């Protein structure tokens, strides 16, 4: 082992923090190198000198001042206590959930949902109505086509219809 390598391990060696193999290497070098041995002894003394410096104690009011500053910290409201940490991750998750929810809600512009299954009779009536739609929407036909009156069933509204048509024909 070279002096440079031995010196690099010297502090750890003096601390007893090198493994058995490393310790044997350093000791082997120190046994054959008076300069490094002398350096190691001086380092040991430096460590002892540092141990002479007495510790200082915190002042009497130290704890009270820390507690006072901690007590002055803004407390969280009950709402924020319910919000789990980490808050940014929770906020992103909440945003994604809301986005998905809104996307799934039915829009006003969306087409009406298809009508449920209808009976065969209803489908037949609808078909007839659609088939004659052109005729029924033609006002001239409605006002002048007398045969429509014959097909109509006699009810309370018929006389008025007839009267109306009569008025119009007079015009």
């Amino acid at each position: 082992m070279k002096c440079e390598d031995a010196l690099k391990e010297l502090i750890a060696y003096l601390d007893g923090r090198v493994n058995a193999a490393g310790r044997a290497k350093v000791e082997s070098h120190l046994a054959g190198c008076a300069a490094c041995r002398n350096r190691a002894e001086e380092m040991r003394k430096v460590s002892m000198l540092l141990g002479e410096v007495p510790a200082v104690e915190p002042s009497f009011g130290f704890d009270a001042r820390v507690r006072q500053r901690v007590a002055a910290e803004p407390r969280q409201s009950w709402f924020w206590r319910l919000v789990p940490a980490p808050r940014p991750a929770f906020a992103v998750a909440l945003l994604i959930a809301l986005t998905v929810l809104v996307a799934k809600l039915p829009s006003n512009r969306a087409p009406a949902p298809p009508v449920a299954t209808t009976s065969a009779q209803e489908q037949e009536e609808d078909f007839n109505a659609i088939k004659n739609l052109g005729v029924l929407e033609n006002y001239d036909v409605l006002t002048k086509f007398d045969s429509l009156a014959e097909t109509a069933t006699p009810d309370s509204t018929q006389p008025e219809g007839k009267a109306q048509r009569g008025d119009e024909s007079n015009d």
Partner: protein
Amino acid sequence: MARTDVELMLDVKAGDDSSFDFLLQKYRSPLVNFLHRMVRDTATAEDLAQEVFLRVYRARKQYTPSAKFTTWLFRIATNLALNSVRDNRYAKLAVPLDAPVDEDAAPMELPAPVMRIDEHMIERDRTEFIRRAIASLPEKQRAAVLLHKYEEMDYGEIAKILDCSESALKSLLFRAYESLRVQLAPLVTQPVEQRAGEGRPS
């Protein structure tokens, strides 16, 4: 069974302020000592220690036990101390540009880099001499020595606190102890027998 620091901190996170008080009682002295040796001023050291505890408290909700509690605690303390030392150094060196110029005034004196040991020993006692030797180290070397010697932390933990590799830390510590050996040479070269029973080898 005593709770570990991590368990106490998790309790603080859950809203138990009495656990924070346990941590305060446990680490108030080590922190104040460490900071006092870093900044060499009692009032500043206590202010910084308060700030460390306050930052721990403020960060309680985000606390995750990914490292030893002491690593986190002393990392905060070291960063605050390094900032304080640097700010203070620049503040002392700053001379206002609009300060009145006194032609007859003596030039600003900077402390002599080397003082004779007898001057030191007359002016201050042995302990103060050692304190000054520690204080003369560059900040990062000083932090490394304090964490190593006084907090008795292992190399891995100190390396994490100082944000360097263990190999770099070994070099840093060797340079620091080498500087101290030179600075404390008058005491180091005293016969061992005179100081027998003092201090303790680490």
